[in-house]
């Protein structure tokens, strides 16, 4: 009897001990930081006992990148490049330009950092919208195209063609979110998240060990409704949609969205209304979300098949149909029917 009791007591003690593993006592503690940079409001979230130092370091990094890449700041590297037409790039700017040029080649020009003069012609940066004539478009299109720049691999020297100007906005936020994740990791944070104006990237899992749940905004919704949820670990979820920025021509009633095809100069009209890219590479996800939007459903599906080791995608077309690439099938939920895009046709 006594032995039995001893055993019971020992078991009870063990049960108590099992809970006390070497966990961060502040694992569920959460801190947030809001930063206004890169023309958007960013929300940084970190969990655990290193969260404050991680957030402070990430905040500094975002300001540093913004000062480097912003077209709005006179002394940024990009502003200098656009003014002086030639500049030797280093560090982050160089890494970003190199990745942008690779994306330009891979997407056959759908992703292009020289698209900025077109954006200006349509009035998107200033919100003084203008529906340009074909003549106006042709004049600007002549200098659009990353193939007209010369980049010297050895020295990092980038030289623009006359009339060109560069904007890394299509890839910069994704790059920044990826840098924030690195900084979190270096600071000892294992669970964190960043949303740069709707560009989301997650580090690790939620503190409870479950994947992060990221909503995909309904492109047809009026009040930011969600149309699907994707569960991710250590990945970025970056969405591009025509609903984000557009204007209506007051004379014809035509709607023009801000996603321009750099090759035609016209807003992309290929039947898609939203493209979300899921990838562990934030900058890639950022660049591809607009590129796949421009490609349309078929082009985007083919592009994914050729690069399925690098990213997955969620596409919504103008009938509201939801398409999900095969590798993401088990991570996406929606009240809608989900069409799976298979790896082999």
């Amino acid at each position: 009897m006594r032995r039995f009791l001893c055993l019971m007591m020992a078991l009870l003690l063990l049960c108590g001990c099992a809970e006390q593993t070497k966990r961060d006592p502040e694992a569920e503690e959460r801190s947030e930081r809001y930063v206004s940079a890169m023309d958007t409001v960013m929300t940084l979230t970190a969990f655990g006992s290193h969260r404050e130092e991680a957030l402070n370091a990430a905040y500094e990094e975002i300001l540093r990148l913004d000062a480097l890449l912003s077209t709005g700041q006179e002394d940024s590297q990009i502003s200098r490049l656009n003014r002086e037409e030639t500049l030797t790039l280093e560090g982050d700017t160089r890494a970003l330009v190199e990745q942008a040029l690779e994306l330009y080649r891979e997407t056959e020009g759908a992703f292009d950092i020289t698209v900025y003069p077109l954006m200006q012609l349509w009035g998107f940066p200033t919100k003084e919208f203008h529906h340009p004539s074909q003549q106006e478009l042709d004049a600007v299109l002549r200098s659009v195209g990353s193939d007209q720049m010369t980049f010297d691999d050895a020295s990092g020297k980038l030289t623009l063609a006359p009339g060109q100007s560069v904007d890394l906005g299509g890839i910069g936020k994704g790059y920044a979110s990826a840098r924030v994740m690195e900084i979190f990791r270096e600071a000892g944070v294992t669970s964190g998240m960043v949303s740069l104006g709707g560009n989301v990237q997650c580090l690790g899992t939620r503190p409870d060990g479950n994947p992060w749940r990221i909503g995909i905004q309904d492109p047809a919704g009026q009040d930011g409704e969600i149309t699907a949820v994707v569960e991710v670990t250590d990945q970025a979820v970056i969405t591009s949609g025509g609903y984000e920025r557009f204007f209506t021509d007051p004379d014809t009633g035509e709607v023009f969205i801000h996603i321009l095809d750099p090759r035609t100069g016209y807003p992309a009209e290929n039947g898609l209304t939203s493209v979300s890219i899921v990838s562990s590479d934030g900058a890639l996800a950022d660049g591809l979300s607009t590129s796949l939007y421009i490609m349309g459903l078929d082009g985007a599906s083919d592009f994914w098949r050729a690069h399925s080791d690098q990213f997955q995608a969620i596409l919504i077309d103008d009938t509201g149909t939801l398409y999900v690439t095969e590798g993401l099938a088990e991570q996406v939920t929606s009240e809608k029917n989900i069409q799976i895009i298979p790896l082999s046709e």
Partner: protein
Amino acid sequence: MQKTRRRELLLLGALLLTGLILLAVVLLNRQRGAQVRVMIDGASQAVFSLDEDRTYPITTPEGTNLLEIRGGRVSITQADCPDGLCVKQGAVRYVGDSIICLPHKLVIEVTGEDDMALDAVSK
């Protein structure tokens, strides 16, 4: 000798009582579910709120089931599976409860609000 035995019995009784109380706490504290998740062959297909009454036909590769949400409970009211066990399982409402239709590889799972809450929105 008798004193020790009595003490041991008392201790044993106390342990049993503690166990019973713990069991009661667990059973009584069952959390009301907030949402149901529909999974076919392990893959999540849809998520519905338990607050809104609705019916939803589920089409699986093996057959169909009719899901019904009423008064915060979820049940399968019709199914063309051979055993009909999913219909017989009745309505469930607590976090962790589930209805399973093995022939159709269908699992209906009740989850809590926190579990399903979004961490962010990509736009």
